[in-house]
């Protein structure tokens, strides 16, 4: 599929000398939901800032639907809507005025019917004449989303859209995002709630210390997640796996020879555990304890980031 955003060789070093992005290469596919995960300070917001034109990159290029975001910034930015992480809103404006202002900034002619539709879909219609400062945090978040959607963008950046937002609003928001995706809008989101990324995303990218350390289809990741491990602690150490035991392809022996690990797919019809245990008994292998373990996306994520910090993965 053709990429709608292409980021190549992108680096950013702040005036303080902080190296926020290091040679980022990333393609965002047309129409997908891409979740960018990473710990605080990993460079997520900087990356979004560079793509949207708020931050000047130190080197590298970004093209948005074929338009360079520096030399052809008008065409590039017209396609993009941005919901920033911070709740940055005017205080004294009404909801209607601020959303209309955003549309005007993009040079679009007035379209009250469209703005009405957005406000209604975000449950802001009743508040349209209220001053923004009188709204709750969750409502302000919705206003920011409405502003970002006001000019009918083809690409939407959501930087931590659910931070500090209650469960109900989160559900509403994800419904809006799903509808947008169905309408063909490409969505790039960052979140700290990994289960949200799991629910929503088509692909997942992990950024740590200014580097993209993983980009993968969510399905492929979920397959990894679907795997479970059964660990058997043996009474007597083994030097090698005995021949003829059931499922030996999925079995591994620990270095010390005192643990057998069986990896299986929880989604499969039969896990083979019963047959494995029977087979072990037949072979006279006895065990004193057993445990099972499933790794979550969160664990994979934490593991990746941790490895990266220790320099194991580069």
């Amino acid at each position, binding site marked *: 599929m053709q990429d709608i955003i292409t980021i190549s060789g992108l680096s950013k070093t*702040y*005036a303080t000398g902080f190296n926020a992005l290091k040679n980022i290469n990333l393609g965002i596919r047309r129409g997908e939901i891409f979740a960018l995960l990473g710990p605080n300070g990993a460079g997520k917001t900087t990356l979004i*800032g560079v793509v*949207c*034109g*708020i*931050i*000047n990159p130190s080197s590298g290029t970004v093209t948005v639907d074929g338009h360079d975001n520096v030399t052809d*910034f*008008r*065409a*590039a*930015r*017209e396609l*993009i809507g*941005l919901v*920033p992480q*911070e709740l*940055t*809103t*005017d*205080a*004294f404006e009404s909801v209607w*005025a601020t959303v*209309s*202002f*955003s*549309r*005007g*900034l*993009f*040079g*679009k*002619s007035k379209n009250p019917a469209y703005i009405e539709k957005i406000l209604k879909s975000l449950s802001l219609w009743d508040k349209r004449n209220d001053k923004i400062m009188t709204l709750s945090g969750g409502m302000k978040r919705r206003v920011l989303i409405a*502003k970002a959607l006001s000019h009918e963008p083809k690409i939407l950046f959501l930087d931590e859209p659910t931070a500090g937002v209650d469960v109900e609003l989160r559900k509403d928001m994800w419904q809006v995002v799903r509808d947008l995706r169905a309408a063909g809008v490409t969505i790039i989101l960052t979140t700290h709630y990994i289960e949200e990324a799991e629910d929503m995303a088509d692909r997942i990218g992990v950024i740590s210390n200014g580097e993209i350390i993983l980009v993968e289809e969510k399905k492929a990741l979920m397959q990894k997640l679907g795997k479970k491990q059964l660990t058997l602690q043996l009474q007597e150490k083994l030097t090698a796996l005995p021949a003829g035991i059931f499922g030996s392809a999925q079995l591994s022996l620990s270095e010390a020879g005192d643990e057998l690990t069986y990896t299986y797919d929880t989604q499969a019809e039969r896990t083979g555990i019963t047959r494995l245990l029977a087979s072990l008994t037949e072979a006279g292998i006895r065990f004193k304890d057993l445990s099972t373990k499933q790794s979550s996306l969160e664990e994979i994520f934490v593991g990746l980031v941790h490895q990266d910090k220790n320099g194991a993965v580069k």
Partner: protein
Amino acid sequence: MNWGAVKAIYRFEMARTGRTLMQSILAPVISTSLYFVVFGAAIGSRIPEMEGVDYGSFIVPGLIMLTLLMQSVMNASFGIYFPKFTGTIYELLSAPISFVEIVIGYVGAAATKSIILGLIILATSYLFVPVRIAHPVWMIAFLVLTAVTFSLLGFIIGIWADGFEKLQVVPLLIITPLTFLGGAFYSVNVLPPFWQVVTFFNPIVYLISGFRWSFYEVADVNVAISLGMTLAFLAACLAIIWWIFRTGYRLKN
């Protein structure tokens, strides 16, 4: 050019003015009226004439300039500083607009507001003293040029400022003293020779002098020099703004 965006910014800023109508318009009108009472009636009655013009009438152009300069700087600096302060500047930076459009929108709105105020003060002064405008076209030209130039200066201050104190510092510590010393209330000719020379380093002298000439055809300096100095100041502000936007100074990391 994205004129839709210019219009959006201009309207947004003018709406902000509309919301603060009382403090925006009432305050300058009241303070100007007080000047007329104090300088025109109380003190002015003991000063027969200045450069052949009745003293109360003589100070009208200076008073208008005083408000025009202060309001232009304050409106424009606040207009661009506030989005920086609240963070809503992200929207301007990520919209398909160039800095030219941002400047036209903000400076245009700030200049419009101060021109309206200038005209209101002019109207107010008719209530107190006789006013004669010899060259209305030039009067308007100086009014607009000065409002635009000082709105540009205000815009620069708004971008440079990283706190509310700095927003106040320039108008209070530089513009007000320079205006008072720039012949708002007197002709430079009444100063001792040494101070006359010092005065000519004050750019505001040229603005007030030119503006007063358009009213009463009396001027401290040649009107062509006044116009030239105003344009030079305008060019300097434009050059600084061009540099700010080229480098992203205090706007983009």
